[in-house]
């Protein structure tokens, strides 16, 4: 470095040095970018998810006096209502998820074709998924009541008379669950369909045409080309559905009130609702943990069965 160099040049020189030093770590910096972008998410989730969840888990192992105990869980597992809620939930989940998926998939295949009014039809299909839960509750409770719109409709068109009004909400357990499944399907099918439809549009017409050229029947094309290519989308839809199906409760309570058809999450809310009773609150927490474990287990089970983990490993190779 020559001492007689003008200062400006010198500072420029210095700058190059710093830049050089920076560019040395450029590789590392580049690698950091995605983590920096993800960081806010991680921070947010540790503050407002992980922290309360850990809190809930810890509290669920303590009794009212703050002493460690399994009592809350023992209470749950001794309670026959828990098992009833468990089996009811399982029944509803298995049937509603299956039915919803099949119908939604059929619908998605049907309207994947271009036709006049398809945009209008899509909007119609999106209405149920945009309705607030409370509105859905009001809609069906005003409809299924003995003097609700459904019976009114049937009477107005002469299908039934006053004497043969259908007591929709007064049925036994089985019909209650069926009704819930139907209502849930009405609400949720559009949502599943939208996801599948989005996936289908990504699959593209040409690969299916190739299937037709090379000798596939419609069914073979569906089974060997469309469904395999759609699998990631199907997994997404199924996981989202399983997660929220196990957490069903609001519509049941809005239609039947508490304790008529016990399901898992309804029991959690019921325990919370016993306000002031800290004992029940803790049981509610313990039950929440149980529900979360069941949901996770179901989701992981589904991922395992559908082979999504293998695919991930394949990608990582």
């Amino acid at each position, binding site marked *: 470095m020559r001492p007689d160099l003008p200062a400006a040049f010198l500072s420029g020189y210095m700058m190059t040095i710093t830049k050089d030093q920076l560019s040395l770590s450029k590789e590392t910096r580049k690698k950091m970018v995605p983590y920096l972008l993800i960081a806010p*998410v991680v921070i*947010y*989730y540790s503050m407002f998810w992980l922290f309360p969840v850990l809190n809930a888990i810890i509290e669920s192992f303590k009794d009212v006096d703050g002493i460690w105990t399994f009592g809350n869980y023992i209470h749950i597992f001794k309670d026959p209502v828990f098992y009833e809620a468990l089996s009811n939930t399982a029944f509803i989940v298995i049937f509603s998820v299956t039915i919803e998926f099949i119908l939604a998939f059929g619908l998605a295949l049907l*309207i994947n074709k271009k036709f006049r009014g398809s945009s209008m039809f899509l909007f119609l299909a999106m209405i149920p998924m945009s309705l*607030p839960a409370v*509105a859905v509750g009001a809609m069906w409770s*005003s409809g299924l009541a003995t003097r609700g719109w459904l019976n*009114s409709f049937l009477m107005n068109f002469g299908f039934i008379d006053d004497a043969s009004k259908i007591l929709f909400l007064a049925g036994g357990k089985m019909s209650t669950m069926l009704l819930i499944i139907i209502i849930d399907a009405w609400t949720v099918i559009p949502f599943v369909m939208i996801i599948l*439809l989005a996936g289908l549009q990504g699959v593209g017409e040409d690969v299916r045409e190739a299937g037709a050229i090379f000798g596939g029947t419609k069914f073979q094309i569906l089974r060997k080309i469309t469904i395999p290519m759609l699998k990631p989308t199907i997994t997404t839809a199924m996981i989202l559905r399983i*997660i929220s199906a196990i957490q069903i409760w609001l519509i049941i309570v809005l239609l039947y009130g508490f304790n008529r058809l016990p399901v898992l999450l309804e029991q959690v809310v019921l325990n919370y609702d016993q306000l002031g009773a800290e004992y029940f609150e803790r049981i509610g927490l313990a039950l929440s943990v149980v529900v979360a474990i069941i949901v996770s287990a179901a989701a992981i089970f589904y991922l395992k069965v559908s082979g999504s983990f293998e695919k991930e490993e394949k990608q990582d190779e």
Partner: protein
Amino acid sequence: MNNVVKRQLRRSAKRTSLYIVLVGIAFIIIFPVFFLFSFSFMSDYETYSEWPKPLVPSFKANFMIDKNTEGYHLFIFNKSEDGFMPFGPLVFANNEKDIDSLRKFIKLQSNCKISSQKIVEYLKVVDNNSRVEFSIKKDLLANYILFFKVVNGAPKAVLNSLMVAGATILISLSIGGLGGYAFARYFFKGKNILKLSVLFVRMFPAVSLAIPMVIILAKMGLYDQPLGLSLVYSVGQISMSIWITASVFMSIPVSLEEAAMIFGTSKVGAFWHVTLPLALPGLAACAMYSFIGSWNEVIAAVVLTQFNPTFPVVVYKALVGSQGQINLITAGSVAQALPAIIFTLIIRKYIIQMWGGVKV
């Protein structure tokens, strides 16, 4: 020639059956929603005194007043009975007090507005002709107005809901959008695990999350505050936003950004000038999706609010609390559903795109 006709026939048969199925599905979707709207325009009388209930609300009501030795009697036309039925106080006299209470009764029960003066005029006609029939235009929006009047704090609850939704959009879109961009554009260690764990957040029931949050928010001074509620909503909405924005960004080819970089902008500049404008509709759709989610949520809001409830809480309490007044509750429900439906209408084109790249 025969061939062409056959082909056309087959095609139109296919088309027709497609449309029949579509119309059937549309009917199943519309049918209950139609009644939700329909009920919200019905008066108490239509809702509770006609059986079977009318399928569409009427725009006016027909009344009749007659007179016997005891005094005047009011009747209303009942569509299901196809005749006039007694309505209101059994007898009333032509004095200020009776007529005023009659006026109020008519307004409350049939959503029809009539002035005392007019009633007095009709009574004069009855005095001459022994009876009078008249019809009054129904105030269709009466249930809505009543809902916001009688239900405690409904207008303020709407404001609260809007604030919660606004804050939720801001938080979830900024944090989720960054994450989504990372998922869409970068390969990094633990990406798959992270993507799945974002999903796992939803596995802990929202209600259950709300209870411990009461204490945490109380400590932060945010309990019963819109901002506090939006912090809880953002937990679920961030994970949705990540998935959706990742999908939106994935639908914009990297090559566009690369092209911008070749023509002289930095990576950030390329994002700013190329990717962001292209992603804007998708991001807007994502924001509205967050709005809908936050606007519709009810249970966490029940737990986390006390004196500052959101609008869904108000409707929920009205629904669970009072078993009657279904027309009033449907009015509240429609008022709550309408913004969500309108936003869905606006973003319907983008919803498919939003989900396009969403894959586990």
